[in-house]
């Protein structure tokens, strides 16, 4: 119970403290102290009615005490007006005082483009997700020391270079929001390719963003996209071998997640300027239907090609075209793409050639894909296909 409260409240309390103090390290320290106090107090007296208000008030009071004690610190934080009175945490937590939610400001600070991408990712997981430095280090396969340095370097830059703590003004908001969503999607993909907990973390962040920016179609689009992909997790490689979408056991899908994703897509798809995440989410939703309307999928990929100009998207569009009934044409498109080092170009070619009854060519394509494949479940799948189309069958 307490742990759940902590996970939910960490980002909110930290955001308020960073906003109040203008200093990341101090804010983190005060927040940590408040959480440590809560462990003892709540175990004894029970969880207060408004745990967030209790934690925020306690953390603020700790910070105020510290600034009063420490003259050097007070000089460093000239912007903080230290109030004379300390509100009582127990009283605040009993009342209905609402503390403004500044997590959006915090997210935009953590994902500021002047920070290296890897620092943005780590900082977001630490500040908003409340993950420990050790956990983040483990997820990114680096030592705790390295991760600690990465985080402290980023916090130092935020302070020294004056990275602002605010939601960016309208004229830069679209690109800054794209950066934030990019960080969340990066965390998701990191989890999707192995670390379940990170995928869950990304979805949690996606929910926070969608809650804070309910009118932002791309935030909802990203959340829907992550939900629809994650819903199929159990069916992707149940026996340690990749199962392609069309062959997946749908009983293994999480239908509640798909329904949530579908509802989000329905909400945003009608908006005039839909972005790449909303369109990808719409594709993911279509692909969960009993009878997949491949022509409709192709139409959405047409839109996505225009939005992204990405050759990988063109490859996916070609794959959909093949399933929509134009495999020869799709092959022609694929052969014009400059993606020779890309595993999925070759596996897609293999699939189309196999279905066209051209096993010799399919074999070559699967073999080339296998040369490039790293993930074990994908290698096994390709080996099975090679055995299916290869000579001697």
């Amino acid at each position, binding site marked *: 119970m307490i742990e759940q409260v902590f996970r939910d409240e960490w980002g909110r309390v930290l955001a308020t403290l960073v906003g109040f103090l203008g200093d990341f390290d101090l804010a983190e320290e005060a927040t940590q102290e408040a959480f440590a106090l809560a462990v003892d107090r709540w175990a004894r007296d029970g969880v207060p009615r408004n745990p967030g208000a209790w934690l925020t008030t306690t953390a603020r009071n700790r910070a105020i005490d510290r600034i009063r004690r420490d003259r050097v610190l007070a000089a460093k934080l000239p912007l903080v007006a230290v109030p004379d009175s300390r509100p009582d945490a127990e009283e605040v937590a009993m009342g209905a005082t609402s503390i403004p939610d500044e997590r959006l400001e915090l997210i935009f600070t953590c994902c500021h483009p*002047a*920070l*290296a991408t890897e620092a943005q990712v780590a900082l977001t997981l630490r500040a908003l997700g409340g993950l420990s430095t050790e956990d983040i280090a483990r997820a990114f396969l680096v030592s705790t020391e390295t991760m600690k340095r990465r985080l402290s*370097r980023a916090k*130092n830059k935020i302070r020294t*270079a*004056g990275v*602002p703590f605010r939601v960016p003004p309208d004229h830069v908001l679209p690109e800054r929001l794209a950066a934030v969503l990019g960080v969340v999607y990066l965390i998701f993909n990191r989890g999707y390719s192995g670390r379940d907990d990170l995928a869950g973390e990304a979805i949690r962040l996606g929910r926070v963003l969608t809650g804070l920016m309910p009118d932002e179609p791309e935030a909802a689009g990203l959340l829907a996209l992550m939900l629809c992909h994650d819903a199929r997790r159990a069916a992707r490689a149940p026996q340690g071998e990749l199962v392609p979408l069309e062959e997946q056991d749908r009983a293994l899908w999480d239908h509640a997640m798909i329904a949530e994703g579908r509802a989000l897509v329905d909400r945003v798809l009608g908006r005039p300027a839909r972005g790449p995440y909303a369109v990808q989410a719409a594709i993911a939703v279509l692909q969960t239907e009993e009878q997949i309307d491949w022509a409709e999928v192709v139409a959405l990929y047409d839109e996505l090609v225009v939005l992204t100009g990405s050759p990988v998207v063109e490859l996916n569009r070609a794959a959909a075209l093949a399933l929509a009934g134009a495999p020869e044409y799709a092959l022609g498109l694929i052969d014009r793409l400059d993606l020779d080092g890309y595993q999925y170009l070759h596996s897609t070619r293999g699939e189309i050639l196999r279905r066209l009854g051209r096993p010799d060519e399919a074999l070559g394509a699967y073999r080339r894909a296998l040369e490039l494949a790293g993930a074990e479940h994908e290698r096994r799948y390709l080996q099975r296909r090679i055995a299916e189309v290869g000579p001697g069958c």
Partner: protein
Amino acid sequence: MKYALMIYVSPGGMEAFSEEEGAAISAEYLALRDDPRCVDGAELALPETASTVRVQDGESLITDGPFADTKEVLGGYYVIDAPDLDSAIEFAGRIPAARMGGAVEVWPVVVREA
């Protein structure tokens, strides 16, 4: 004549010195600022707090750290007073070199108490 003196330091070069030696070197820097020939000067924060701005097709591309490419040459500098990094980046993006294949480094200036 006016001259701009650009100071290049070897990374971590000050770490080899004791506190007293470091203070003596700082005093040398300050003494040079008091030289009548010195118009202005600034100490820059650590390179990892710097950012680089380039403008492509009207859009500012911001990267972490100073500018690593060596084919461009130093062409000048501004010292600006801005409320935050976003404002400094916006200023940097207006410098013509940023959109003409060059880049602008944005370094925080160290402010020391008098």
